[in-house]
């Protein structure tokens, strides 16, 4: 079964790859871009895939944290689909940028030039949240895989779940804040966080049901939740309709009306019926995201999807199918022996799965807490594991935000606590996880890495350091095109007294001296003595003759016609007269000084 799906995935993926290459080369004019919001298909695909990614973790982490028993296969599918969706959720924001090579400037880290990303911008929160979220869900998935070899690691799975649970909601809220914080009329809505999270869970449930059906299993809890969430989404759309007076009808039909057919037993029991329901929900939610991101798409047909958009959609869908089932087959093949790992729960209801779990645990003698008994969260075992790392995380976040707000770049930017709050929790979660696993590896020796894994982690560390160095340096912009040679003649405009003074110090002071009494050192050694500037001599010659002297030159003085404009020469002459007056006054003071 996997083989056919992978072939179909490949068939979609290759043209998609071409479309991706073409849009990176061509830039934002390639795909459908809304005239008002400047965003289009890549961002709606990004919101769609990041919603699916969050649903993966939402289901596994939340159910794990709330002790809702979910058989191990569904949990693994959820985590795996998270990682694969994240790959695509990461590609689209990068490829939709106008200048893709400047993407690193969105990171809130200092660079060599002293610039800093604008931490008040929702896109910076987005970047950090998704990066941290990808890292943490990767760590969560690796821990999940490694717990089979080293059971002691299971101690860390639940604390990680408690870390991921708010992180998932936080990240998707930040994605919704991209839209809610703007002045675009269609994006008006302080309720967007709840709206986007409900949409994400709804699409995640649909994806989970789809993947489970494709493997021939079914989990009734997820299907029931899918139906309940379709009602909740319809309620939100009603409020959206009231608020803005417009509704994406196609999304309402696909994701609102069609899922109700689950109530008909015939469709519910038939595998293809369930697949069709989940597919319609996914299509409906994608259309709704497309309508939110680019309202033009909904209202007028002026900007239909061109073939590049279909290419991008095919790229993401084909890529997901290819990657997901590829890893699935690899995991199946690699862990063939682990029968119990993929509990053969086919078609039985969840309650039975729970029964089996209980018996197994009962047999192993693990004291399962009696139902209804409430563990004090601050005394719970997960909290003990997390306590120190959380403290380190909060301390780091505090220091980080103080450091950020003291950056010189924000000297004339108005910042309040509300601007930086969305950036804090991902920082806390990242530092907590790093401390948790560093402590686990070094202090508690909870797990050991094989030689191969040690080399891999060192190489990754070196690569990360290299990237950090490159982003810190920031590359140099190309030099200017114009060349510098000698000063050409300026425009013939009247010259102010200060400009004449600068001109005199540049051109004439070499011989005539800054104060007009000629420059002894230079003149005595090399040149016959130029005239002394005094008022009588200047008045007798008259200004226009002096201007002619400057422009055409005289016995020992070269012509400046090619280098000075007539009005500059006139300015110089006036300046000479003021110098001469000053010279005579200082001479008078000098006389009466010596006279006194």
């Amino acid at each position, binding site marked *: 079964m996997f083989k056919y799906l992978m072939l179909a995935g490949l068939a979609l993926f290759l043209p998609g790859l071409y479309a991706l290459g073409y849009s990176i080369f061509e830039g934002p004019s390639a795909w459908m871009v809304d005239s008002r919001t400047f965003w289009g298909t890549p961002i709606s695909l990004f919101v769609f895939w990041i919603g699916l990614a969050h649903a993966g973790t939402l289901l596994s982490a939340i159910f794990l944290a709330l002790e809702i028993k979910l058989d191990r296969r569904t949990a693994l599918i959820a985590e795996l689909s998270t990682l694969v969706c994240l790959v695509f959720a990461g590609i689209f924001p990068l490829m939709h940028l*106008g200048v*893709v090579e400047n993407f690193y*400037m969105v990171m809130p880290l200092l660079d060599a030039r002293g610039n800093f990303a604008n931490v008040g911008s929702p896109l910076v929160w987005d970047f950090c949240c998704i990066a941290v979220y990808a890292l943490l869900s990767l760590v969560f998935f690796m821990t999940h895989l490694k717990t089979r070899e080293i059971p002691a690691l299971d101690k860390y799975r639940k604390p990680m779940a408690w870390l991921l649970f708010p992180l998932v909601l936080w990240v998707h809220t930040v994605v919704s804040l991209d839209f809610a914080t703007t002045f675009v009329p269609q994006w008006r809505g302080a309720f967007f966080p709840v709206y986007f999270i409900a949409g994400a869970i709804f699409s995640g449930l649909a994806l989970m049901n789809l993947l489970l059906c494709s493997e021939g299993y079914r989990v009734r809890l997820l299907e029931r939740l899918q139906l309940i969430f379709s009602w909740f989404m319809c309620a939100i759309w009603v409020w959206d309709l009231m608020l803005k007076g417009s509704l994406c009808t196609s999304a309402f039909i696909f994701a609102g009306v069609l899922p109700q057919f689950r109530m008909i037993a015939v469709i519910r029991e038939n595998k293809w019926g369930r697949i069709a329901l989940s597919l319609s929900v996914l299509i409906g939610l994608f259309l709704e995201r497309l309508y939110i991101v680019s309202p033009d798409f909904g209202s007028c047909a002026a900007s239909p999807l061109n073939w590049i958009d279909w290419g991008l959609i095919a790229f993401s869908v084909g890529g997901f199918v290819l990657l997901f089932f590829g890893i699935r087959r690899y995991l199946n093949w690699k862990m063939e022996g682990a029968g119990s790992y993929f509990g053969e729960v086919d078609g039985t209801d969840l309650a039975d799965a729970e029964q089996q779990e209980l018996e197994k645990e009962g047999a192993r003698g693990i004291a399962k807490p009696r139902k209804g008994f409430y563990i004090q969260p601050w005394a719970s075992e997960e909290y003990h594991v997390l306590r120190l790392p959380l403290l380190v995380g909060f301390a780091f976040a505090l220091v980080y935000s103080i450091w950020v707000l003291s950056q010189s770049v924000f000297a004339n930017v108005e910042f309040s606590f509300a601007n930086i709050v969305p950036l804090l929790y991902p920082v806390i979660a990242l530092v907590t996880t790093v401390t948790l696993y560093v402590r686990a590896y070094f202090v508690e020796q909870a797990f050991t890495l094989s030689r191969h894994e040690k080399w891999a982690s060192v190489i990754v560390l070196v690569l990360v350091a290299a990237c950090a160095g490159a982003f810190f340096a920031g590359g140099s912009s190309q030099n200017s095109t114009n060349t510098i040679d000698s000063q050409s003649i300026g425009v013939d405009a009247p010259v102010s007294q200060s400009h004449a003074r*600068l001109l005199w110090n540049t051109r004439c002071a070499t011989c005539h001296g800054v104060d007009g009494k000629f420059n002894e050192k230079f003149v005595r050694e090399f040149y016959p003595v130029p005239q002394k500037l005094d008022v009588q001599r200047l008045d007798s010659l008259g200004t226009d003759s002096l201007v002619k002297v400057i422009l055409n030159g005289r016995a020992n003085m070269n012509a400046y016609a090619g280098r000075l404009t007539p009005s500059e020469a006139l300015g110089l002459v006036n300046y000479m007269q003021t110098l001469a007056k000053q010279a005579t006054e200082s001479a008078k003071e000098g006389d009466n000084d010596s006279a006194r």
Partner: protein
Amino acid sequence: MGMDRREFIKSCSLVAVMGLLFGCRKIPLEELAGDLPSLKRFEDEVKLALSQAKKSLDLVKIPTPGALKIPGASTLNRFGMAIDLDSCDGCGKCILACNLENNVPLVPNEDAARGRFMHWVDMRGSAPFMCAHCGNAPCERVCPTGAANHTPDGLSAMMYKRCTGSRFCGANCPVQARKFNFNDAQKLGLARQFNREVPLRDKGVMEKCSLCLHRLQNDRLKFKTSLTVGETAEEWRGRGVKTACAEACPKNAIIFGNWLDEKSPLVKLTKNRVLYAPRELADLDPSVVFMRGRR
């Protein structure tokens, strides 16, 4: 054709060298990238933009703009413009002057047909409309890299090398005063550097009216050079500087000046006039405003 191994390797290397030479020869024509567009094409595009202008302005009364409220703002200078709607007849000379002064590129025909021009000034309700340089600018709040920032003297400046083209500022501007470089104008031969002072913008970057930042910069630098040489000891107030559109307007309907300087033409000519701003910008403290009627 009994070629032995040595000849075979020799001929292969010959072919490889030929290929290499062919590949990396300098294509002389590459730099020229087609001839530069003529002035007439710029004028025609402005006429096309005028004929297609259909947006209108929904104006509402606002008080006279005062000092900026952002930290570190200058208490002496707040540059802005006032557009007199009574004397403006919508001739469009200011658009052409702005395009030539700031090297605004042309757009390919299919974008022109769809009205997606790059002009920093466009006609709305038969009056020139450009970025209002809001004091509390929504575009600067959401720009991720800090490319859109505010100068202490009231200009919403754009650092094109920091722009990563996320186009979020374009979405967040309530009146859509920002234009995006969808095409590489230089490569398509649509851009021409009329004014050497202003660098051309490259593809994928958002641009907008810069309130002739380069003229203000040059004037400030010239003043500071002569300042310490002992001419006038007081501060630079940007006197005597006019934007390209203000200069080109035959009816002097666009007045550029400094809102905080009593001697500036802006404060003098708007003293007994009623000031308006678009409804969406009214409470964002705009510094480019409209005037109509007498108080």
